[in-house]
Structure formats: structure tokens, C-alpha cells
């Protein structure tokens, strides 16, 4: 038994594609001549990102070139993705420092809690998006790599609007 | 009166090291030991004789060294750490050697209102000590500021070793120093 389908009768004005096509072409041509171009010529040209952009991490260093991190253990504690591995140690001067500090950027959800919780302002999420890798392993950043990053870091708060309102 | 510090103690060198150089000679021998025994008779506990014993040490040696604290501790059945805690509480026990003349100038408010600071300055200048708590290069003087000496009506009181001098003013200081033997 065949299924009975009711076919709607619609006027030609509604079913013709010509009008819509012309409308679309009009927009296209308008943009062709528009002086305010939106297209960014990446990679020659870089996108200007928000100061609150949260990208891959960077570890800041002190004036002696050592990581500011004191291995307090707050970032692995607060990390919701559990992507920070930290093993504390003691250097030759008896100061606490991270023996192992690794962030798995592939697991990271870029919430920025690590930066927010850091009492030493050591770990930061970066204003940076060019971080492609050929392997998953390449996304596990060790301390050396985190320290070697040079990109600017995220401003968690707009200084003019500290409460984020 | 001048019996505070036996001369010759200044040979003890810098703080804390004196007793390492030469073997420590006990303070409480002979008559001094008898004196302590007499003092012990005044109190029901041995510990109570601690302050008097430390005074004897300071009288005999001019200061209270770590070794002396250990000696006192042993005599009174205390531990050296305990004795050290007590010694550091009281300001009048010297924990390192001081000059032959230990000058204490009261600078608490009532004396301060009557020019005690100038007296201190005069002492520092005329003894050559330079700064408070330091011993003059010739080993003769140590000048310190102290809190209330309890003679506020006789501002400014100065103690030189055991001698209490009332109503000292800055201009009297040079004369005072020349009178010391």
C-alpha cells in the first residue's frame, strides 16, 4: 500500500530560486568592493586576540632565570582536568622548587584556574594559539619548554574592571 | 663599688669564642662555692638560687659565657638550655664580654624629657664607642641605653658598673670619664 502524501501547492514567486540567487550575488559583489575587509591574511597577518585569551601555558622566571614556581602544589590540586604533574624538590640552597613540572596541554581545558590560584604568579595561560604538534606526546610540556615560551600571558582581569562586571 | 667587672676580662676576645680557646675554669670553687652554698640555704629549691648564682658568675668573670651557664646548670640540677632561657630574659646579664666600664644611660620618657639623649651622645663621643652596645677600641667602655633606672627625679641617672650617678648632664660627661681610674 502506497503512502499517501499531500503535496502543497505554492505560488511560483515563493518557489523560484532566481530572486534569492540574485540577492546572494548582490551581497557577494558588495563585499568585493567593500573597503573594510574582514579577512585576515594568515599566516602573514596574525589575529589580534583578547587580553583575556587563555591558550597554552607559560612558566615565568625570576631575575636569575629560574622558574618562579615554588612547587606549592596548588595548581595540580585545583586543575579540573588533572593535567598538571608536579613533583616537589629542594635545590642546593634549600629552596623548594619543582623537580618535575608537566602540563598535558591536550588534556587541558584552558580554564585558567592554575594561573588564578598560583600564589607566586609563576604559571600563566598564554595569549597564543599557534601550538600545533605532529604527535600527542608533543603536547606534554615539561618545565623547560614552559619556561622557554615567550608569548604574552593572559590578563585574567581587566585592570579597569577587576570584578569582571 | 667598682667591683663589677674584674679587669683582664677584656682579653676574652669576641663573643662566644673565648671559652673555646682556653679550657674553661669553673667559677664555683673555694670561697665562691661556699658563697653559693650559703645562698642555697635561703631557698627551698635549688632553682631559686639561679639568679644569685648568675650574679656571682658575672661578678667573677664580667660576663656570663655559655660554659658558665653549663656550670651553673649542673650545680643547680638544671639544663643549660633552661639557664640560657633565663639569662636571655634578664637584661642585666652580659652574654658577651663588655668594656671595663659598662655605662648604662636611662633614656625612658621622664629622663628623655630632661635631655637624656644628649647625655648618650656625649658618652658615645667621649668614650670613643661610636655606637650603642659596642666596646671602645681600647676596651675601656661599652655604652648602652637602658630603660628606666628608677631614679627619674634625678634625671639623667647613669650607671657605670655598679656605681649609680644621678643628675648627669651632657656637659658633665667628660669630667665624669676622667674621674674613672
Amino acid at each position, binding site marked *: 500500500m502506497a503512502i499517501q502524501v499531500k503535496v502543497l501547492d505554492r505560488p511560483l514567486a515563493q518557489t523560484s530560486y532566481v530572486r534569492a540567487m540574485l540577492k546572494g550575488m548582490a551581497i557577494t559583489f558588495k563585499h568585493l568592493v567593500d573597503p573594510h575587509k574582514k579577512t585576515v591574511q594568515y599566516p602573514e597577518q596574525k589575529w589580534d586576540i583578547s587580553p583575556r585569551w587563555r591558550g597554552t601555558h607559560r612558566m615565568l622566571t625570576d631575575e636569575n632565570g629560574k622558574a618562579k614556581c615554588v612547587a606549592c602544589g596548588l595548581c595540580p590540586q585545583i586543575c579540573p582536568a588533572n593535567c598538571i604533574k608536579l613533583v616537589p624538590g629542594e635545590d642546593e640552597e634549600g629552596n623548594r622548587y619543582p623537580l618535575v613540572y608537566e602540563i598535558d596541554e591536550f588534556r587541558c581545558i584552558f580554564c585558567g584556574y592554575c594561573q588564578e590560584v598560583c600564589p607566586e604568579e609563576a604559571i600563566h595561560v598564554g595569549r597564543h594559539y599557534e601550538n600545533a604538534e605532529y604527535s600527542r606526546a608533543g603536547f606534554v610540556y615539561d618545565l623547560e619548554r614552559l619556561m622557554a615560551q615567550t608569548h604574552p600571558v593572559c590578563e585574567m582581569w581587566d585592570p579597569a574592571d577587576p570584578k569582571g562586571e | 663599688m667598682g667591683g663589677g667587672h674584674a679587669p683582664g676580662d677584656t682579653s676574652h676576645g669576641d663573643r662566644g669564642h673565648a671559652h673555646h680557646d682556653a679550657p674553661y675554669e669553673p667559677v664555683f670553687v673555694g670561697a665562691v662555692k661556699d658563697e653559693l652554698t650559703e645562698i642555697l640555704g635561703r631557698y627551698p629549691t635549688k632553682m631559686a638560687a639561679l639568679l644569685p648564682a648568675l650574679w656571682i658568675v658575672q661578678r667573677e668573670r664580667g660576663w656570663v659565657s655559655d660554659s658558665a651557664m653549663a656550670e651553673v646548670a649542673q650545680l643547680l640540677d638544671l639544663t643549660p638550655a633552661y639557664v640560657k632561657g633565663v639569662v636571655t630574659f634578664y637584661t642585666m646579664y652580659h652574654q658577651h664580654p663588655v668594656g671595663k666600664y659598662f655605662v648604662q644611660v636611662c633614656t625612658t*620618657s621622664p629622663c628623655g624629657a630632661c635631655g637624656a639623649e644628649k647625655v648618650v651622645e656625649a658618652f658615645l663621643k667621649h668614650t670613643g664607642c661610636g655606637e650603642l652596645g659596642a666596646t671602645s677600641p681600647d676596651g675601656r667602655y661599652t655604652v648602652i641605653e637602658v630603660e628606666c633606672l628608677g631614679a627619674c627625679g634625678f634625671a639623667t641617672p647613669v650607671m657605670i658598673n655598679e*656605681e649609680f650617678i644621678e643628675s648627669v648632664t651632657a656637659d658633665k660627661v667628660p669630667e665624669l670619664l676622667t674621674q674613672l681610674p
Partner: protein
Amino acid sequence: MGYPHTSHPKETPVLSQYFGDPGARSLDGWKQRGGYRALEKALGMSPADIVNEVKESGLRGRGGAGFPTGVKWSFMKPGDGKPHYLCVNADESEPGTFKDREIMRWTPHALIEGAAIGAYAIGAETCYIYIRGEFTEPLRVMNAAVKEAYAAGVIGPNAMGTGKRIDVHVHKGAGAYICGEETALMNSLEGKRGNPRIKPPFPAVAGLFGKPTTINNVETLAAVPHILNRGAAWYKGMSRGNPKSTGTKLFSVCGNVAKPGNYEVEMGFPFKEFLYELCGGPLPGRRFKAIIPGGSSVPIQTVEEAEATVMDYEGFIAQGTMLGSGGVIVFDDSQCMVKHIARLARFYAHESCAQCTQCREGTAWTTRILERIERGHGTMADLDTLLELADQMTGKTICVLSDSCAAPIVSGIKKFRSEFEAHITGKRCPMGATAAA
């Protein structure tokens, strides 16, 4: 006697009668001046009768708190089988006070006599006189007098030939203001750090060496022989109308005043008359500005308040301060109050025993803030902080050292706020002085 000046006719010299009289120092000299009659009489009385007589006289502690002495003595339960102790608090270290020093220097036997009577009255066989280490001369005089008294049999195993044992020992302190606090003094006597103890237990229950102990000020005990000699009614009569404050009181006067020294007046003497007549008023060309009437621990008075004060326990309280130990510190208009309050705070910071948090940290912190203001680096908010800290330091610690530090700060800021503000707005001391470095 307005020692070191000659006596003023308006004084009532009882304790200070022989100040400046070297003859009174020896046992014989003291006996010639009527000494040790009271002790002889006392040893013939029952301890309870002595306590009653002292109670009747209205004598109150002269060390600062003003607790009735007879009542204090009556706390010592007789016949409890424990040794009792009497401590004499001669650790006079309250800035501005130097009365006990003179009593011990000139009339050592007055103290020994008073102490012996006190010891007998509370059932103690041993009395320790704790004298601060800085008092080298009083120590020497007292040691000699005790030796003399032992030799003459006035005290010792057979005091005055009555068969009663009264031992008196002089104990030399070693430089700690806090040892003037009674429980700290006991700890110090026991050979410990001079830390005040938490109360209860009170000294009358467990004091020196854990045994019932009474502790009295030098001036208090020195007054006792006079009370026994001349009767409680006579002593009580020396008061200008306030039955709660009786007898005479030694006031030590120091600072910017024409004639500093010790003055003995009847309780209730007008402070204005005292300052301007007995003490000779301000130095030439100067005016009084502020007065601390009872040793450095009591609130500061302005001249107006001081002039309206009558000199007894209640009179000072009525004017917002305390009689304290009777050490009158006078500042004239050449003095910077900020500097002096900072200096007083530094005194307390130096003397804090380090037990209670508020005192250990608070005295040092307030000192640093005050010194900063004095150097011209203060802010108006600092004044509020100081007042708040002073509140935190009052009534919250084991002893009252931090309260003592807070009292001049609070009263100073309240009464001389303009001087503080001048330092802050002017960014320097308007008097040109700086606190001792």
C-alpha cells in the same frame, strides 16, 4: 620631706621623715628614732589583731592596684600546715616612680621592721625582699641593714627574743620591668623567667614555691610600723574627707618641673597645689602641658584635668586616670607628646615578657607605628589603627603590661590628637625633635 629638697610645710612626712638623714640608716640610729618599737609590740599581739589593726587603718597597697592591705593579709589562712611566704616587691621599675628607692636608701630598717611585722601577721617565717638589680645603692644598704638586724637578733630564728622565727633575705633582680608584677616576681624569685602566671590560683593559695604567699610593696610595709605605733585611727585620720583613701602617700615627681623629688602628702591633697606649690611649678618660662600622675602605665592627663584632681585613689579615677604607684611625670610645652608616647610604647615593647600574643606583638607594632608617625611618615588611618590595637591590647592578656602600653596611647591620641595630626600633615615633627633612634 620633699627629698632631695627640704620639706615643704604642707607635706606630712611620715615615711619620708628621715630621708637625707644618714643617721637613720644604722640599726642604732633607727632605734634612737623610735624604730623596732612596733615590731616588739606586734610580736606581743596575735596575728589576727595585727591584720585587724591594718584593716582598720584603711591602708591600701601602694604599688599600683590599691588593694586593701589588711584584707590581703586576711586571705592567708593560718594553721594550714604549709609554709607561708611574704614577698616584698622592691622591683620599682615603673617609669616615673622612685619612692621605694629612697625608702630603702635612707630608712632600710623601716622596711625590715614592716616586713617582719607583715611576715608575722600572715604566719610566714620567711620573707624575701626582691630588689631590682639596677638599685645598686639600695641593695647595698639593705644588705647591710639585714646583716645588722640578724646580728642584733631583731630578725632571725629568735626574733626580738620572742622565740619566733622571721628570716629576711634580699634577692637581687636582673633587669626586667615585668618582675614588678607579683606573679612574675615570684617566678623570678624561683629562678625562672619572669613570666606572669595565669590566675587563678591566686598567690594567697599557691604563690611562691607553690605555697600561700602575700606580696606587698615597700611603701605599704614601711607604713605598717607607724600604724601599729600610733594606731589605726591616727592613720585613718590622715585623709582629706575620703574614708576609702587614708594615710599619707609618697609621690615621686619628675620630668619638666622646677623641683623634682619625693613628696609625702595626705590622701586627698589637691593636685594643683601640689604641682605649683610643693613642686615649684613649671621651669622658668614654660607651661605644663601633660601630666602622667601614677607612673607611666596610667592614662595621661591634660593640665586642666590635673588641676581639678584630688590626690587619692578615687580622685584620680574621677579624672579618668589612676593613682598607680604615685610617679608623677610632668611634660611642659617644650615637649613633643608623640615622641614621648612613642618612647613609652618602646619601653613596654622592650619589657614585654613574650607570653601573650597581644602584648608581644602589639607593643612592638604600636611602637613602630608611633615612631613612624613621629618621623613624619604616618597617616590618619594609623591613628584609628592605633586606637583599635590599643583596644585589642586592653583586658585580654595574663597581666596588665599591654594594658599599660595601651593607656598612654589611647589617652595621648584622645587628648593630644592635634599634635599627632600635625606630625602627619606636616610630615615631620613640629617640635623638631625625633624619637631616640
